[in-house]
């Protein structure tokens, strides 16, 4: 077992933005119980800017911290900026993740991408 960074522990201890957004503009759902963690990311978008982000996560400490961190990272960003947020950015913002836990940051990136995609799809439908 490698240690978690203080930053990870902080976000695990007090995760930011937990919950759903009932009238979300985009929802990204990734993972499945057979392979491990499950993450749901909700975003609220106004004039191309992510005004709010929330998550629900079933997963280990790293998964919860990654979810919390990614919601923090996207808030206030334009969709273009948000789309560029990679799992590396999440890892960096968390001061690192143990190698076996890197996939959690990937899940966070994917959840974000899916939420933005979902938002875009809804815009098309309108």
């Amino acid at each position, binding site marked *: 077992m490698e240690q978690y960074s203080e930053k990870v522990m902080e976000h695990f201890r007090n995760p930011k933005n937990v919950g759903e957004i009932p009238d979300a503009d985009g929802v990204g759902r990734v993972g499945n119980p057979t392979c491990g963690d*499950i993450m749901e990311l909700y975003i609220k978008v106004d004039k191309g800017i992510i005004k709010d982000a929330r998550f629900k996560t079933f997963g280990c400490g790293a998964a919860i911290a990654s979810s919390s961190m990614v919601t923090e990272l996207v808030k206030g960003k334009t969709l273009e900026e948000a789309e560029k947020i990679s799992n590396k950015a999440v890892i960096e913002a968390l001061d690192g993740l143990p190698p076996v836990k890197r996939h959690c940051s990937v899940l966070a990136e994917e959840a974000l991408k899916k939420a933005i995609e979902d938002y875009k799809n809804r815009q098309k439908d309108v």
Partner: protein
Amino acid sequence: MRVYLDNNATTPLAEEVKKEMADSAGIFGNASSMHKDGMLSRNLLEKARQKVSSGLGCSPDELIFTGCGTESDNIAIQGFLRGTDKKHIITSKIEHPAVLNVFKYLHNNGYEVTYLDVDEYGAVDPELLAGALRKDTALVSIMTANNEIGTIQPVKEISERIREYSKDIVFHTDAVQGFGKTDIDVKKMGVDMMSVSAHKINGPKGVGALFIRKGVKIKPVFIGGHHERGLRPGTENVQGIAGFGKAVEIAMAGMKEKNEKTGRLRDKLKEGIIRSIPNIKINGHPETVLPNTLNVSFRDVEGESIIMMLDMEGISVSTGSACTSGTLEASHVLLSIGLDHASAQGSVRFSLGVYNNEQEIGYVLEKLPGIISRLRDMSPLAKKSECK
């Protein structure tokens, strides 16, 4: 407050063991040396061998000391197979990695392996095992008690089935978890080889032992000097072995009472959890189970995050085996008893020890419900379960 409920991973050193080890720290000779310094070490070694073998119900010359339980398992299994041409071996699906991974290795290297299913409680069916025996079966390895869910296997019945079929098949049991927590007697159990480990019974880490019944021939896997009959070469860890001897001595004294006490505390914890937390499942056998072990699935939450939150409150527990923490797989034991992945991942093992008390259990029952509900609030699965 710090509450340690991870005694199946390892246990604190008993004060008497610490003392024994401190007292023997000055006895340093090589137990193989002719001179007096060697003799003093040899005497300590043989005194400890006496104690540990009496704990297993074997004679001292049927016991070798090893470096850990994993080593005992490997010497037993690989060592026996190095001396036979038979190529079929049998184990259960819920063995510790120290056995299961050896079988997987052997599977990939020319052996035919039968991995026995277990029932929903984790018990091996002796009849199922009897049906798997073959003319070319060399060895059967079934653990005495499971480290994750505590289920005690019908070792005696299994041994009887094996003997009915053939006198030549060797029966090994990994009793690393059973030793000290359930009745152990190699004769009554009818086993040919048995692995134990000191650090699970308040002894030192880095010492194990292997019982090898007289007449059972095994070859060394690690090869070197003639120590421990050449089966575990390397200068003997006299100080650690002396500590092991002492640990066995105190574990055996009043074992029944100690286990009854542990069992009462475990039951209190179990009932408290059932009462205060919905949507849970108790894993393992309801009766034939180690008195100290409680494995619980908390639906919709993940085990590591429970452990971390408990840790923040000063409570040490684990998801299944400490040996697989750091990997991402769900417990093979929990999957084998029929849990789905999410439940398997949401499981926590509480394993008590001789030093736990009522107050500690009360403290855990105070903290646990809040943690589970907090994590369920975070979980995307929780709402769905409610809908169902």
